[in-house]
Structure formats: C-alpha cells, structure tokens
C-alpha cells in the first residue's frame, strides 16, 4: 500500500516538475564543455575552461543571445579518452546540451566524436589533429590550427632558410602520429627530404639515443613533434649532446610552460605558434591584433595567469558558437548550418571561413614562426 502511495507521489511530483524544467530550458541555452583541466594536458584545458566561463559571463552580461541566457556545463576529461567519453555522455543525455566545446586534445576528441555524431550535437573541438576534420563530418568543427597548417608554416620557413635535409622525432601518440604523417606527406612539396624518422614515448625519461642517431645522419635541422613534457626532455638532451643544428618544435609546446620546463635548453628552439603568444610584436595592420588585445586584457584582468594560445581556441569556439546560436532558437540542426555558413570571423586563432569541405576554416597565415631567445619569444 505504502509503495503505491510513493509511486503516485513520485508521478505527481514529476508531472509538476516537468513542465517547469521544460519552460526553463526554453529560456536558457545550455552548452557543454569538456577540457583537460587537470592532468598532463592541463596547460591546454585550464585556460580553455577559464576562457569559456569568462566568455559565457560576458555574453550573458550583454543580454545573452536573442534574449536567451547561456549556461555552460563543463567537465574535466583529465586528458583521458575514457573520461572524455563519460563526460560527453553526461552532457548529451543528462545535461541535454545543444552544442559542445572541446575536448582539448586530439586523442580525447577522436574518442568522443562518434557519440556527438550519433546524437547530432554540434561539436567544436579545441584540438589540433587533422583527423578531427578529415574527412569532414557535418557535426564536427574545430578552432585549433590543424597540424597540416603548422607543418606548412614550418616548411615555408625552412625553405626560406635553405634547409634541405631534416630528421624528425615524433611522440608516439595520436598527436605525434598525425604530425609525422603531415611532415612526411608535405616534405616533397617544399623540396625537403626527411632523412630519418624517429619516435619517443610520451613518458620517456631520456631521448639521447634517438637524437644521437639523428645527429649521426647529418641533417640540416631537427623537428620534434610533441606536447609537453616530452619536447622539453628532447630540448634538454639536444643541448647536452651539443647538437648545433636548429631544433624546431611543434605548436603543441607554444606556452610559457615549455620554457619553464626546458629552461636554458629552450633558447634557440624555433616553432610555429598562434599569434596570441606574440600579440605585442604584431604589426598594427594585422586585423587580429585588436581581437587578441581585447581577449588578453579581459583574461588577464579576471585571472592571475598569462594568456595562452590554447585559451584562444576556446575563445574562438565560444564566439563562433554564439554567432551560430543567433536565430537558431536552440535547434541543433540550425546551429550546425549556421556554423558551417560562418565566413570572415576574425578570432584569436586566425580568420575563420567555414565551408562544407573545410570545418577548420583557417589558412597557414594563422601561424607565425617564433624563436625562443633569452627565455622569451621573438618573431622570425
């Protein structure tokens, strides 16, 4: 008898609550975020999370989108694909978000895309791997520059510097593999020959063996493709082995953390990076300069740390999504269509022009080449 009452009570309550929550949902646009806030990739996820929160606050303070307030639901993937998958399931089924920003890394993004595709939820990833948007999936976008563009920027600079033979050293995870494929695939186009191709484990304590092997092969330069902390170990080892040819790094280490980890050994390293690292050095005619300064001021006023390019990926993702939400009335299909039709958005990362064939929308000039000198960045 008691049980029947209980069931009845529950039914009545749920009937009372349901219309209310339905009405609430109409007022608020719920958007999800998955970032590697902690863990080895926290240098990516932490500024991304902070940026997303800050942007949502700004948009709400300005009256929201078409009168709808934004609500951000953010989960920490800890850089772990399994945790990213459980976060994406929570966002889709429990929080019922209309779009998702993130995850921060290529492995976590590749792990979640199948779930967002199936649920027809637009995803704007903040990771670099080219596999995320090739082949193009209607529901998957990304704001980080592809390694395709990063490799093109590095090779352009090498060609100008007269470098012909290179040795490459890539980390043995999705980021490194993706970079390796691009490095090998594009070399010929720039008249560059990859004479040796080695790899290192993300947790390796020593890479002198690989570097010695590359050194012995006698290339004009070495390219190391990985994210912290591996490349810092490579930079240290290269210095210890007295390798005097230029060491190029990938855009994955473009943050002050790299200089902190590698210390002295970071000096002389050359890498492609988003313009945000060198905003003050940019030419005034650069349309991105103002966007970057605005973002930088807002971020640094709100949080204690320095701004990084990674936060910029989230900055662009939120702005692009906000643009697409306009006039969508929260319909996922419309949000997707609006995103794909976005043209000429000048963001922190570069100028975005999405097309049905290109869901990254950037060109190689989204990168500038920088050299680390005396523990700071200089424009090349």
């Amino acid at each position, binding site marked *: 008898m008691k049980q029947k009452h209980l069931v009845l009570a529950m039914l009545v309550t749920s009937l009372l609550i349901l219309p209310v929550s339905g009405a609430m949902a109409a007022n608020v646009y719920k958007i999800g975020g998955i970032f590697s806030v902690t863990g080895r990739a*926290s240098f990516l996820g932490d500024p991304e999370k902070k940026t997303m929160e800050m942007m949502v606050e700004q948009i709400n303070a300005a009256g929201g989108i078409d009168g709808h307030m934004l609500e951000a639901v953010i989960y920490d993937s800890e850089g772990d694909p399994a945790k990213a998958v459980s976060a994406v399931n929570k966002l889709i089924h429990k929080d019922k978000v209309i779009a998702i920003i993130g995850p921060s890394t290529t492995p976590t993004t590749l792990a979640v895309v199948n779930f967002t595709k199936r649920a027809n939820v637009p995803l704007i990833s903040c990771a670099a791997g080219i596999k995320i948007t090739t082949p193009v999936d209607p529901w998957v976008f990304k704001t980080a520059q592809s390694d395709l563009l990063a490799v093109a920027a590095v090779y352009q600079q090498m060609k100008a510097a007269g470098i012909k033979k290179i040795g490459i050293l890539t980390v043995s995870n999705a980021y490194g593999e993706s970079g390796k494929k691009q490095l090998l695939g594009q070399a010929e186009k720039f008249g560059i020959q990859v004479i040796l191709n*080695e790899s*290192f*484990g993300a*947790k390796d304590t*020593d890479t*002198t063996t690989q570097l*010695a092997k590359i050194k012995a092969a006698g290339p004009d330069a070495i390219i190391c493709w990985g994210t912290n902390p591996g490349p810092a170990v490579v930079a240290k080892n290269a210095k210890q082995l*007295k390798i005097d040819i230029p060491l190029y790094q990938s855009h994955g280490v473009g943050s002050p953390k790299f200089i902190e980890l590698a210390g002295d050994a970071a000096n002389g390293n050359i890498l492609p990076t988003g313009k945000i690292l060198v905003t003050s050095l940019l030419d005034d005619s650069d349309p991105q300069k103002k966007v970057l300064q605005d973002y930088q001021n807002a971020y640094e006023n709100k949080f204690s740390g320095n701004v990084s390019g990674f936060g910029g990926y989230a900055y662009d993702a939120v702005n692009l999504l906000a643009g697409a939400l306009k006039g969508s009335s929260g319909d996922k299909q419309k949000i997707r269509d609006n995103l794909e039709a976005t043209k000429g958005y000048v963001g922190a990362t570069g100028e975005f022009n999405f097309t049905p064939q290109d869901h990254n929308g950037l060109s190689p000039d989204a990168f500038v080449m920088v050299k680390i000198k005396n523990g700071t960045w200089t424009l090349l």
Partner: protein
Amino acid sequence: MQEIVQYLFSGITTGAVYAVIAVGLSMLYSSTELINFAHGEFVMIGALAMVTLWVRIGLPLPVAMAGAVAAGCLLGLMFERFAIRTARNPEPITLIIITVGASIFLKGVAMIIWGKDPFSMPAFSSHESIEIFGAALLPQSIWIVTAALVLAGGIHLFLKQTLTGKAMVACAVNKKAAWLSGIPSEKMGILAFGISAGCGAVAGIFIAPITMSSYDMGTLLGIKGFCAAMIGGLGSLWGAFAGGLLLGILESMGAGLISSGLKDAIAFVLLLLILYIRPGGLFAAKEAKRF
C-alpha cells in the same frame, strides 16, 4: 662507432636507474618474499620530495637528498606498519594485492600534494657534458651510475659484514630457524621495508634532473624495475643490478640500431627469450641459495 658509444651511455644511464629500483625490489623480496608493486611510487616520492626540498625550499643539496631519502624510508615503514602488518591473512597473494592498492593510494596522495603538472629540476652539477669517443656523457649519468654502485655496494657490505645484515640473510634463508636462534625476524622485515623504500627514493632523486617528475611517473619505472629484477633472478642483489643495466642497454640499442618506435617491444621480446632459456633469471643458478 660514435653512435654506438652514445647508445651505450644512454642505456647505462637509464639502466642504472632501473638497477637501483630493481635492487630495492629484490632486497625486499629476499627478506620477506613479497613483491612490492608500490615500489615505483617510492621513486616518485623521492623525486617529488626533492622538488619540494631542493627547488622550492632551497635546502642545500646533501640535506635535501637526505630529507628525500628519509621521507621515502619513513613512508616505507608506515606502509609496512599500517598496510602490511595489519593484514589478517598474510598470504603472499593478499599482500601483493595490498601493495597494488598502496600504489594507487600513494599516487592519489601525491596528486593532491603536488598537483598534476610535471616539474623540472636542474642538474646537480655543471651542465656541460663530457665528450668520450665523440659521444656526450651527461654529468648526471655519472651521478646516477655512482649512486647505483654505492647503493648496491653498501647493501652488499651491510648484508655480508654486519650482524644485522647477516641476521636479515638468515631470516631470508629460513625465517623459523632464524627465529629459533633468537633473531627478531619481524624487525628484520620492517628494516627490509625501510631500506627498500629508501632505495626507491634514491632512484627518484637521481632521475629527477634528467626527466620531468610528476605524480604518475612511478608506475612505469616500477614495472621496468620489476622486469630488471626478474632478468637478474628475483632475490639476487647483483643479479638485479646487472638486470637493470642490461634492460637499459637493450632498450637503447634497440631504439638506436633498429627502431625507436619498437624500443619497448624489442627489450621485452629479449626479456621473454632470456626468461625462456633461463626461467630463474640470469644469476639465480642455485634455487636454494639466494645470496
């Protein structure tokens, strides 16, 4: 030629680290018949304690080292007192599972204390590497190999020359007989735990400057150390030492001469071969005699 020497140097450096870890594991196994899967975590504690004491607080190097080893030893003793000794049914398999649990626990605690970001530490002595046959030898490698030798030599002397050491060997050979002749076998077990954890911390201290230290660095190192101890023959001190060096050199040569992508695979296939040919390990010729 120049590269081969370089591969050898790299191999000896990583190998010496594995050796120190393996010696600690092996030492504990010989006195308590316990394989401590939390051993890698003591390596991590050593490295991170060093980060705090030397880099952050700025204590002089020897003091910081002593502090980090003491922290490792103390933690080892606490581990024995609170996790191992309280086990109601001390069968080897139960105890081994307890060590696995302790490993997860220690990793979690370290994550809370030090956070998830990796730390970098400067080398102990000047940064210039020494050139031998055109190959660069890092000063830190010399530190590591010296530390490994001193540690293994010290433990060897302790077991052979001191009364306590001999008592420990006696316990290892036959616990009951040792007890009957008046040796406090329980105390010997505790001592073994302390020394073993200290060895782990030493490995962490010396490895920290050449790599980045973080809360999750210990697990892989612990497994490598375990493999090294297996090659040498579990329980044999110098066997563990040689096993560590061999594993390091195999890895480095495999990476250098064949492919760096297959580095771990090559090393482990060779390990399997060694264990297939000599199941007891390279140096465990006589089953009954462990020392």
